[in-house]
């Protein structure tokens, strides 16, 4: 985490974003903690020239692990900045408070803002090199002490056309507990994408090979990706039980939809069919065949 002399902040993170919105969520965390405008925070990821080590985004871990590392770095930045502020404000380090982007001396109206402290950290006019090493730049690594355990309930309501075997998702309701949520809109988007992926897995997607090992679903003319009109509008909500094993109380959210959706869809489909003799993807043909078996059973 590099605080520039003008008070802007650059965060180099190993948690790469390929659409999960880290640039927003991570910046929100830093801006909120330091009391600076969000546009003063730059999140750098995926640039091997700048970021030494990164392993991408997977395992629903960028919030819980990546942001915990950012919190550790922020702790170090704040501690060092307090030292600088104590020289600027001519007070004991223990008497410096930091709140809303301002360092102040307890019980007085003396204060200095974050950007001024950043400048003083570099110009080093208020302290000597023996008293404090100039600069404001810290790094942190974080190894989680435990996994996070999100939980939730997804309810799929499906309609099956017995004539054709077509399954339509009539309604979708989901409540998840992701612990503390930094950006509700981004988290909701993650859930939407996950459900779409899960519905794709349950009803549409499947790699098919012929007897010679030739892939038959080699283009989107044959491989069915879920599309907007395959999906209903989702009703999603959340409860908040903070995670005990990381500083922000965050739990993973990225995979929740994709984990819940196939099970919810298939439970609904098998419930409608009256038996479990069907595999994913439950394509119209597979459902039609399974429904014929249901009718035959009902007729017995």
């Amino acid at each position, binding site marked *: 985490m590099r605080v520039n002399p003008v008070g802007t902040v650059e965060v180099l993170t190993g948690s790469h974003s390929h659409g999960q919105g880290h640039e927003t969520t991570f910046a929100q965390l830093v801006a909120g903690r330091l009391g600076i405008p969000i546009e003063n925070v730059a999140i750098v990821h995926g640039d091997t020239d700048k970021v030494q080590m990164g392993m991408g985004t997977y395992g629903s871990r960028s919030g819980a692990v990546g942001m915990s590392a950012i919190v550790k770095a922020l702790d170090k930045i704040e501690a060092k900045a307090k030292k600088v502020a104590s020289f600027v404000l001519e007070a004991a380090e223990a008497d410096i408070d930091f709140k809303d982007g301002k360092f102040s001396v307890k019980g007085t109206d003396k204060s200095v803002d974050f950007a001024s402290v950043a400048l003083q950290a570099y110009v080093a006019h208020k302290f000597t090199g023996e008293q404090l090493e100039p600069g404001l730049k810290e790094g942190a690594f974080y190894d989680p002490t435990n996994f996070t355990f999100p939980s939730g309930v997804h309810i799929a309501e499906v309609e099956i056309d017995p004539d054709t075997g077509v399954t339509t998702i009539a309604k979708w309701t989901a409540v998840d507990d992701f612990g503390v949520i930094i950006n509700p809109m981004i988290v909701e988007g993650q859930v939407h994408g996950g459900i779409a992926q899960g519905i794709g897995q349950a009803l549409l997607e499947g790699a098919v090979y012929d007897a010679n090992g030739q892939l038959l679903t080699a283009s989107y003319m*044959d*491989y069915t990706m879920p599309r907007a009109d395959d999906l209903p509008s989702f009703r999603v909500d959340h409860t908040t039980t903070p995670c005990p094993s990381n500083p922000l109380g965050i739990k993973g959210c990225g995979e929740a939809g994709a984990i819940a959706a196939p099970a919810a869809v298939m439970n609904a489909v098998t419930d409608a069919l009256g038996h479990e003799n069907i595999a994913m993807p439950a394509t119209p043909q597979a459902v*039609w065949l399974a429904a014929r078996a249901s009718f035959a059973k009902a007729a017995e």
Partner: protein
Amino acid sequence: MYAFDFHRPATLRQANSLVGKLGDAKILAGGQTLLPTMKQRLASPSAVIDLSGVPELAGIEQKGRNLVIGAMTSHAEVATSALVTAALPGLAALAGGIGDPHVRHKGTIGGSIANNDPAADYPAGLLALGATIVTNRRKMPAAEFFTGMFSTALDEGEIITKVIVPIGAKFAYAKFRNPASRYAMVGVAVGKKGSSVVVAVTGAGSDGVFRWTEAEAALGKRFNAKSLDGITNPAAKDLNSDIHASAEYRSHLIGVMARRAVTGATAK
């Protein structure tokens, strides 16, 4: 893609003389089939003749008891045309159910029928409506035009100029979309004019669009979906089977789609 010459005639006469002059030239309509084929190097014409600059091939008009649809008319234009929607709502719906918005805005009726893809929608619709295909050389009924999977009665250098569709028929098209490509996995068009009924099936036949004559006879007696209850669906042995649908499933879907088309044609 290999190198080729590109021609963009401004009149039908210029287009005619170009196809006459250039040996293995290909006509380009919206490029929805031709360009992917060229990119995959399944076709490598030395010249491409783009018809998009020929005004005679564009547009839809009503002439007497017919709709006249220019060969270069896009599916989206047919789907949203006030003329088509008023005279043959089932045809507008057919065009509106082709592929996706991109395909509907680039793909054309001329390109679709010249290609005669066994899963295309227009061949069934035009057969059931008793349409006439007009080329730079002659006119022929749809029944003579579609000769089999990916084949038509078109000769070398023959250009489709328009399609004449009689109005006044009871008509509807019911399509079961291939979930991936959105072509017809099974599509059934039903047209009734006077006492004559045509039931045309696409997407299912191993040799392209075909007529289901048993259904036509039953519906000719009484034009109601229930009339199909007594007859057996086209036999699976004559139908396509692929990763999306077995021949048995297609046979079943023909019955379902035919009933839906009849119900659609009798509604309103």
